[in-house]
């Protein structure tokens, strides 16, 4: 068998010399090159542009979507900010109104207090004036009455004896009693 193998190998060797696989056939080079160039033309003309078109469209679609989302987000942000501003304004307004009301209330209370004081002063003044007037009136009428009384008393005293201390005191007592009785 070994011999056979050697023989076979030798046979192969002889064939190999004719069929050196390392020597390219010109026909194969030409066919290979032509086919590759044809395939290159077809791929470059029909396949690659299609893929690139799909990519470009996809990129645009994604970018468009992102942009839309971004603008929506910005819109929402703006709306939120606006609402927050409105809310803040409203709070501020409410605080201002409260403050104003408090001030007004205080003012009203102060005014009323002042009015009341003025009124009280006026009433007091009025009372004082009235009292003064009445006192004046009383003094006047008293003065007239006292004059009359003094005159009548003096007349009585003079009519009786003015020497007798006991009598005079009796007269005065009687006079006073009369006075009280008259009243």
């Amino acid at each position, binding site marked *: *068998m*070994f011999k*056979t*193998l050697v023989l*076979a*190998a030798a*046979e*192969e060797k002889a*064939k*190999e010399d004719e*069929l*050196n*696989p*390392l*020597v*390219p*056939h*010109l*026909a*194969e*080079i*030409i*066919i*290979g*090159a032509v*086919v*590759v*160039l*044809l*395939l*290159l033309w*077809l*791929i*470059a003309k*029909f*396949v*690659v542009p*299609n*893929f690139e*078109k*799909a990519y470009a*469209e*996809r990129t645009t*679609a994604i970018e468009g979507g992102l942009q839309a989302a971004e603008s929506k987000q910005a819109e929402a942000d703006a709306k939120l900010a606006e609402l927050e501003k409105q809310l803040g304004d409203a709070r501020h307004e409410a605080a201002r109104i409260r403050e104003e009301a408090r001030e007004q209330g205080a003012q009203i209370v102060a005014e009323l207090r002042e009015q009341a004081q003025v009124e009280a002063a006026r009433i007091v003044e009025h009372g004082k004036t009235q009292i003064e007037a009445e006192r004046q009136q009383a003094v006047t009428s008293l003065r007239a009455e006292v004059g009359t009384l003094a005159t009548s008393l003096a007349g009585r005293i003079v009519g009786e004896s003015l020497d007798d201390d006991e009598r005079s005191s009796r007269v005065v007592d009687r006079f006073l009693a009369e006075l009280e009785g008259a009243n």
Partner: protein
Amino acid sequence: MRSLTAVPASSDTFHAPGPADFDLPGIFGSEVTKPMVLVVLSAVIAFGLFYAMSRKAAVVPGRLQFAGEYVYDFVRNSIARDTIGSHDYMRFVPLLFTIFLFVLVNNFFGVIPLIQFPTMSHIGYTTALALITWLVYNTVGVLKHGFFGYLKHQTVPSGITGPILIALVPLEFFSNIIVRPFTLALRLFATMFAGHLLLILFSLGGEFLLLHFEPRILGIGSGLFSFLMAIGVSFLDMLVMFLQAYVFTLLTAMYIGSAIAEEH
């Protein structure tokens, strides 16, 4: 070894598969060979499939378009943009995508039932691809830097001066201008060739062991094992098929990227 000699030498001697198995005769006696048909078929498949996938160009991709975009994205972003840079890469995406699809489909012909022949195991096709890559990266480099500017760009490493350049410039020229297309063509060819040869070896060898080997017990056992190996090698080969398509495309992108780079 003694038992091996018992193999009848006449009808059933096992011929180990070799390069001759890759030299397929023309179909119907014409000059057109199977790889020639396959290479055209691969272009039809690659274009038909990806045109169908990309035709709708929908914003929300369907299942088919999603699959197509997955492959296209892989070449466009992971290979082209990351290697060439986001400024210039778009110009080269069609070329890189074409190379990737072309190599991938032709490689996978090696495991597709009824086809079962990786076109790239014929060095002529890898040579064609390598030539195109070589022409493209040198052309864009010359267009960008001017002829002598490009030569300087490719052969004089930045930051190096003095007599060391006498040794470096020829080396750089050799490696960047001359060797690249050969390594590109050879790497792809050799991996596909070797993978397919292994597959043939394990399947033909398994068949021989199973049907003709004496003693029968040993022959059947090792034959079945050989078929198992063929299945294992098929899966390994599929990984290699994808990797080689990736590597070829990536290297093309790297060569283009370094040719049009501003600095080294």
